[in-house]
């Protein structure tokens, strides 16, 4: 490979067919004169094209199409000619430099020699060494680079961070998120998953039907089946935010509700049954009573609440965490519940978690939210990414609609795992807000095969890396149900 030209922060390299590099690969340019090195990343490739070359190709094709060809080419110029026709131009972004003491540097103001520079593909392991990518809790997510080297990120780089996994439908997003959940749990982390398609339950089982290595650490929670709270445990704040945000209760009705709540609490009779009785019998405006009754019926039918405190049936996060101290994944199945109940669940769970984290009762937790725009209200987004991060809720959003996530969130994001996008609008959105440059995103993401993602952010020390996500051992549920099999 040879350097041809430079334009801005981009180098154009000439490569022959034998130079096996692909989009996303890193190249090391070693200037033998100045002894300096530069790291560049290929983001696009095209043919070396000139008018005369195209004319030659067309002419040859016409000739070959017109009659059978025999050749006597003693100098084998034909093969050289074919080589030239297959010559490629790699467009590469300058990512970093390596100074004389072999340390990574951001000083890329110098220009490598076109004559004395040697260009070679940089192994991902070498790149990792230059970047100083190391950690105690590795998460092997697949293979990377032209040599298909094993590639791992570190749980520490997801800890305290905001992550986004996005890509078009069936590009492999859920696959990666399951891999992350599984390894986080193996490392002893506490993970809560808002599972919209009831697919994370498969983490408990291997593909062959045997129990997975984390089966004991998996908890599948559904309203009425594991996901049941007592009103007392939820507390007035959580219930109030649920009524206000999920059930749209007006302020006047909410005041009456609090009055009833306080009176039941004083009598130590707080429960679903007594709450219903109180709403029906207390002396309040009839319109307010109607409002309260309608909300009460929704609460009752959601199967999210116990009538009385019951240690066996009741979900208490702190209890689960203390019992499963080696890490756990609490999967909140929301696939079969109504949108209102979905919102109620999210309000309750998040409010309770914030409450527990504030009081330092539970350690920080990782939250995985699939298509969160379907159940998290707009104002909650910023709360999640700013306030909750400080309390210790580290969120990973998984979505196939990058435009539903606001710019404010993208600006706060630490890691993005980008799967294939073809749609121009999606590419536009993601390239505008992403942590990497527009050209890289547009060119690489557009051609990513299934289960390949471009990792950007802290996990790769801000040098984007294309990763082929490893096949998972665990059972993958959530496939589209089909009529024709």
């Amino acid at each position: 490979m040879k350097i041809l030209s430079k334009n801005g922060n981009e180098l154009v390299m000439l490569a022959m067919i034998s130079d096996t590099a692909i989009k996303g690969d890193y190249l090391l340019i070693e200037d033998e004169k100045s002894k300096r090195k530069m790291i560049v990343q290929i983001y696009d490739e095209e043919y070396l094209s000139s008018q005369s070359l195209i004319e030659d190709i067309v002419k040859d094709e016409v000739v070959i199409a017109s009659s059978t060809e025999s050749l006597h080419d003693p100098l084998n110029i034909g093969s050289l000619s074919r080589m030239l026709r297959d010559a490629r131009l790699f467009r590469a972004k300058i990512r970093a430099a390596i100074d004389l003491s072999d340390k990574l540097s951001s000083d890329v103001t110098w220009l490598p020699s076109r004559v004395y520079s040697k260009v070679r593909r940089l192994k991902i392991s070498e790149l990792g060494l230059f970047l100083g990518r190391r950690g105690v809790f590795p998460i092997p997510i697949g293979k990377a680079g032209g040599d298909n080297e094993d590639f791992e990120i570190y749980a520490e780089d997801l800890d305290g961070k905001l992550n986004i996994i996005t890509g078009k439908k069936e590009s492999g997003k859920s696959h990666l998120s399951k891999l992350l959940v599984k390894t986080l749990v193996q490392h002893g982390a506490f993970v809560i998953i808002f599972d919209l398609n009831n697919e994370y339950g498969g983490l408990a089982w291997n593909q062959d039907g045997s129990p997975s290595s984390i089966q004991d650490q998996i908890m599948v929670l559904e309203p009425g089946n594991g996901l049941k709270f007592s009103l007392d445990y939820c507390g007035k704040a959580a219930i109030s935010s649920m009524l206000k945000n999920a059930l749209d209760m007006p302020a006047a009705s909410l005041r009456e509700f609090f009055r009833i709540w306080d009176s039941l609490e004083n009598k130590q009779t707080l429960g679903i049954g007594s709450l219903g009785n109180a709403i029906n019998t207390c002396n309040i405006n009839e319109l307010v009573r109607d409002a309260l009754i309608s909300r009460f019926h929704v609460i009752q039918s959601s199967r999210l609440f116990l009538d009385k405190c019951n240690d066996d049936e009741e979900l208490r996060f702190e209890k689960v965490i203390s019992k499963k101290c080696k890490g756990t994944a609490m999967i909140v199945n929301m696939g079969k519940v109504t949108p209102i109940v979905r919102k109620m669940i999210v309000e309750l769970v998040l409010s309770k978690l914030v409450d527990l984290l504030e009081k330092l009762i539970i350690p920080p937790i990782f939250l995985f939210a699939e298509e969160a725009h379907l159940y998290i209200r707009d104002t909650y987004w910023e709360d999640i990414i700013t306030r909750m991060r400080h309390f210790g809720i580290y969120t990973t959003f998984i979505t196939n609609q990058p435009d539903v996530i606001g710019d404010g969130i993208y600006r706060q994001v630490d890691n993005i795992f980008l799967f294939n996008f073809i749609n121009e609008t999606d590419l536009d959105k993601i390239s505008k807000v992403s942590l990497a440059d527009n050209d890289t995103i547009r060119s690489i993401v557009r051609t990513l095969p299934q289960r390949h993602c471009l990792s950007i952010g802290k996990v790769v020390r801000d040098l984007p890396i294309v990763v082929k996500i490893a096949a998972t051992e665990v059972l993958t549920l959530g496939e589209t149900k089909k009529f024709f099999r």
Partner: protein
Amino acid sequence: MATQLNLASCGIDFNEFGQIFNQSLNQCLSSRLNDMLKGKKIIFSGDEKSLIPVDGWGIRSDPYCTTTITTIQPIQDNTIVSAVDSSSIQIGETEEGSLYSVKSGIAIAISGKALMHFKIGPVLFYLSNETIRHSELDHRLAKLVLLDSDSAKRLIRVRVERAIQMELSKQFKKSIILIDGSLKSSVFEDKNQSIKNVVENCSLCKNSIIGISKNTRFKILDRFSNPLTKIREPAYMDVELIIKSLIRNSIGNNLLVRLGNNNSPILRVDVVTINGNKDEALGKLLGNDSIAAGYPETLRLAHHISTFTHTEVSCLRGYVLSNYDVTEIASEDIRRTLLGSITV
């Protein structure tokens, strides 16, 4: 500027220069364009290309025309038509000599369909005092090709072409061999592989050989061809008297031929056949080769496969650099350096 140099004080009158210019030419050439050009048809020349009027020069331009025009009837009898063409270029120069490359193409057709084509080369030749000394070239010819690269290219091309033509004339029986250009002896030929030897072989193997020139340097033929332009089918006229009076070393029957219909061009064709039946030879050519735009497709294909492409030239340079331990040194276009370039 004028005041600083004060040209007037030097006594130079530029008007005198103009008069001298006119006088010097008027002594031998007329500049009375008004009288001379009035009513004339004109085609403007450009880029050193040879241009011909699409519908001929018209009646006024062919006062000598009395020759008979013979139409050509295609004969479809599965006769093999093979066409040969080649090209040579100068690849580089050293202190002692020059490096040339040659490429040839053979195209074969039968029953109006292209059968196959054969590309030969590119092959490299180095001409220097040293290499010439060991060759069988005539001393004067050797000097010429060392001094003049055009002659060197022509020598290489002619010799390669003749070698191929010799082989084809031996290999095929009762076929037609097409050659790009007229059938005439060349000073660059090897005496054992001359056009006469090729024709002799053709006679032995009952082959016909046809040389087709796309243009001719004999301007009189352009004017003479006018009657052919009016014929709407393939036809020919004999111009042997004219050609033989202009050149000595021409071989075979010299014709002006229109191979296609309507507006196809008039070509100069030299034909050698075993029985002297040029009608049959041309008929077989029409019947067994496809004629597109008035030119045989085999000859067109042979031309295309024998010309050097830009890619090949680049590859040849690369090949020479990487295989012969040579060092490329900087060079410049002396005309461009001295005259500069103003792109318009």
